[in-house]
């Protein structure tokens, strides 16, 4: 039954793309809006799953976990409350402080730490042990130089070579991946219409 509904809706959305028919287009529009409403509900589901996970840790007093779980739930409740109050003159400064002064720099800092780890990793492992690695090293060098304005000062040919790496071999590879993914997507849709794609239903 579910597979039949899935197949009918998939065909309907495909036909909507190619055919102009007010009733059909309106139906497709309503279905799209339903998907958006469902998307909104997934946020609530995520919040509920997060709460359940951490409440479980707290009630079981999981070693080295439960106090972090309390802190996580405090942060969630605080953010949620300030978010609700953000449209009021009283709540806005608090919400702005939380998001712009705390959340944004913290998120950026966590992301930036990856840069330090990558730098250390490159120093330890980027050595020309084989021809493939040497090709990779030369490409990395040229792409790094392409993005750094100082490369132009060192030698004007460096950014040109970096552009070539980006625009020719790299793009060729990415085109292959993109086209492959597109063909895979079409195959997946056809399998869905034929009722062969059951992974989403938790079946083999």
């Amino acid at each position, binding site marked *: 039954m579910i597979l039949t509904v899935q197949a009918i809706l998939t065909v309907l959305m495909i036909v909507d*793309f190619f055919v102009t028919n007010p009733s059909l287009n309106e139906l497709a*529009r309503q279905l*799209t*809006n339903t*998907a*958006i*409403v*469902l*998307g*909104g509900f*997934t*946020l609530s589901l995520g919040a509920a799953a997060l709460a359940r996970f951490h409440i479980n840790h707290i009630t079981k007093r999981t070693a080295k976990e439960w106090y972090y779980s309390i802190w996580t739930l405090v942060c969630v409740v605080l953010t949620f409350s300030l978010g609700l109050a953000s*449209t009021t003159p009283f709540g806005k400064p608090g919400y*702005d402080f939380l*998001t*712009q002064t705390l*959340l*944004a720099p913290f*998120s*950026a800092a*966590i*992301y*930036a730490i990856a*840069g*330090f780890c990558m*730098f*250390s990793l*490159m*120093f*330890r492992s*980027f*050595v*020309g*042990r084989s021809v493939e690695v040497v090709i990779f*090293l030369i490409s*990395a*060098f040229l792409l*790094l*130089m392409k*993005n*750094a*304005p*100082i*490369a*132009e*000062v060192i030698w004007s040919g460096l*950014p040109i070579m970096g552009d070539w790496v*980006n*625009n020719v071999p*790299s*793009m060729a590879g*990415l*085109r292959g991946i*993109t086209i492959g*993914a597109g063909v895979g997507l079409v195959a997946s849709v056809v399998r869905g219409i034929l009722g062969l794609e059951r992974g989403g239903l938790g079946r083999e």
Partner: protein
Amino acid sequence: MGWAQGIAKIDTRWLYLALLLSFALPLVLPTAIPLKISGETRIVYDAVEALPAGSVVAIDVFCSLSSVPELQPPAVAVTAHLFTRPLKVVIWALVPEGPIFAQMVIDKVKPEIERYGKKYGEDYVLLGYIAGAEAAMSALMKDTRAVVTRDQYNNPIEKLPLMDSVRGAKDINLLFCWMAAQPDERIRQYSVFGGIKWVPINVSAWLSGLRPYLEAKQILSFVNGLRGAAEYEYLTKRYSRGTASMGMLSISHLMVVGAIILANVTFLYAQQKSKRGN
């Protein structure tokens, strides 16, 4: 222990310190570095300049706050340019953190908003977060009002005069997307379905992923991270964090290249020594 071994076994904390200095020193001691304007950035600037008065420019925020250091400078540079022109700007977010980022950028372009007398609701609107990812994009292209009933500040959409004239893809003249992801979904919805000219303002890591779509003319062009910000700031003569970051970008990139060269010299030396020993 020889020098090669010493370098190979260097404490990771020294590497971190070297990288930190390569970021910090150019910011403390700024140096002017010549900057060549790329064709892609110039295309974006020219496209904004060529828009007739009253044109609607949409901005889709699709990046988390972790991308702020790289994406805020180009987003501010382009948005400031939009506000210097007689254009209408509609901003929506398709990630929950998007409205925060949008507000941060709007706060940064307050001088332009005040200088050019832009009014909220008439000249620009922030629609806030719209759930649903690709389905939301598709719905926005068909009928904006079916998806959005209130703006970021909880005002009913009917009370915003600008939204009377923005009903779907046909009303949008140019679209920007502040993004730190692959553009595939947007190609499907904005380029193919909506038929809109759009420009990614992207983190540099995704530059290669945009190239095939640029060559296929499915995106108009792109503004590439901090480098793109500096180029755009040069074109608009509004120098800010993008320009200030160019020294940091250059020295830190040179540091990485230097470290790779040093690692390889050390490796080759150790290999030669081991062959001689045998």
